């Protein structure tokens, strides 16, 4: 499957000089796929207070890269595979353990970082690779990455259409949802798996430090602007996509020349400030 037609369309849709280069068109397509995915998953991350879960997955990147180096496998495969394993592992422990949710995540969080650091400390080349994942670089995204993202996008949107309302039920009270015949385990495992993959793909774009911001800032801003659960998803997607587009364009300007991921997050933070003012004003009325 060739993506050239889509790149050509992006070049025409954004008639800026910087957007006529293929790597910029690839970056734009990557962000246009990632932004709605992280926004929709972010709505549930914020409502269910799962930011720490997302953090743990993003930090499993080190271990994912480390495993790739040990077994001489492309990190683009080991990272999502390991992230998925950690996400499902945390969910399985949370569901069975009497320990609190943040303790379970904390244990996994520490273990994956320790494993990653242990591997990196053995190999100096690995340390250079790790830096790439700390800061991320959407401008180096490849066609293969984009095709994988398209696959994830289709599955994730199908899951959200099928399960958005049921996830709301589970987020409010799992016992109530289970008593009323919602298949809680199925939704929780599916959500953990998809969130893990979105987090790992986002690490390539914005780096480990900013992944959580990609998830929660648009959703938090959307929450300030929404009166109901339906609107929150639309606001989150609008804020996330607009921040991605504006952030990428600003970062490519000569006067800015900033890291794309950081710029995208800063634009969404501006959205958050505006939404807070609007929310506060509305609340006072």
């Amino acid at each position, binding site marked *: 499957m060739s993506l050239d037609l889509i790149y050509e369309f992006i070049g025409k849709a954004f008639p800026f000089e910087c957007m006529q280069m293929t790597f910029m068109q690839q970056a734009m397509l990557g962000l246009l796929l990632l932004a709605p995915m992280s926004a929709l998953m972010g709505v549930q991350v914020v*409502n269910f*207070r799962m930011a720490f879960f997302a953090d743990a997955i993003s930090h499993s990147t080190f271990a994912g890269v480390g495993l790739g180096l040990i077994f001489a496998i492309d990190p683009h495969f080991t990272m999502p595979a390991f992230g998925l394993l950690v996400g499902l592992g945390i969910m399985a422990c949370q569901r069975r353990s009497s320990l609190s949710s943040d303790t379970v995540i904390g244990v996994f969080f520490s273990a994956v970082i320790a494993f990653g650091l242990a591997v990196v400390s053995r190999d100096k080349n690995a340390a250079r690779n790790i830096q790439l994942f700390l800061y991320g670089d959407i401008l180096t995204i490849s066609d293969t990455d984009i095709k994988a993202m398209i696959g994830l996008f289709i599955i994730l949107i199908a899951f*959200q*259409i*099928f399960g*958005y*309302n*049921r996830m*709301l*039920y589970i*987020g*409010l*009270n799992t*016992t*109530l*949802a*289970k*008593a*009323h*015949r*919602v298949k809680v385990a199925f939704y929780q495992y599916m959500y953990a798996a998809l969130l893990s993959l979105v987090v790992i793909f986002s690490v390539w774009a914005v780096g480990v430090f900013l992944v959580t911001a990609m998830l929660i800032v648009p959703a938090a801003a959307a*929450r300030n602007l*929404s*009166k*109901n*659960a*339906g*609107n*929150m*998803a*639309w606001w989150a997607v609008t804020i996330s996509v607009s921040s991605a587009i504006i952030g990428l364009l600003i970062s490519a300007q000569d006067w800015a020349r900033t890291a794309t991921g950081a710029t995208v997050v800063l634009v969404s933070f501006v959205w958050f400030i505006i939404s807070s003012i609007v929310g506060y004003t509305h609340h006072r009325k």
Partner: protein
Amino acid sequence: MKPIEQNLPAVSFDNVSIQIGDSTILDSITATVPKGGSTAIVGPNGAGKTSLLMALLGEMPCTGNITIAENENGEPLRIGYVPQRLPFDRGMPITVIEFMSMGRQRMPFCFGVRKKHREYAKDLLKSVKAEELANRHLGALSGGEMQRVLLALALGENPDLLILDEPAAGVDFLGERLFCELLEKLRKEKGFTQLMVSHDLGTVSHHATHVICLNSKLIAEGTPKQTLTYDTLSAVFGHHMGLVCDHILPHSKLEHDHPCCDEEGKES
């Protein structure tokens, strides 16, 4: 379709025990919940009342057997559940109509609540005298309003068995009385079996048809008249318990024909 066997209990607890670490939460509970009646589980704090409900809902591991009867379609009785409280983030943007429809509508709320689900939710809210709450923000509801909305949500499941965990906790006396009267009216209209944990012996004596007294062990089981006696209540709550007098207990509360209520309560 199978005929409903009226004499079978809706729920049978057979030698049910719950142990957490060294603590025995429930010790060999054997009791039944008669079909069609209003059963109350009473006992002091820490008696294991909510644990027994959680075991019934499959939320707490236990030993022994819990058997849920079948409905006329040969399926386990459909459960509707009203929790004691709904601990949730009150800033979460969700309206009462969305809350009422989240288990029925598949299409995400991003595309709105469909007319048929909206109408259904409004009818349910009307049945619990809460129709004015339809467009309110869920987090802005008072304790009493939330309990009525939770009851409406459970009724929306068309339950054969409605399980309530201290539904009127945190509601004032008048609110509690109105809630129990409403519940009794709905039970008579819809014919479901009711199983309720309650602290309030006044409510139990007026609205229950069957009582299970617990204090980690089964203390007594039977009609309110048989179980809410001075001796039983002293055993459950201690000797200073003097809230219920025998003469105020209703004598005509039997609305089901389960054999357990035709005989003297089982005292252990």
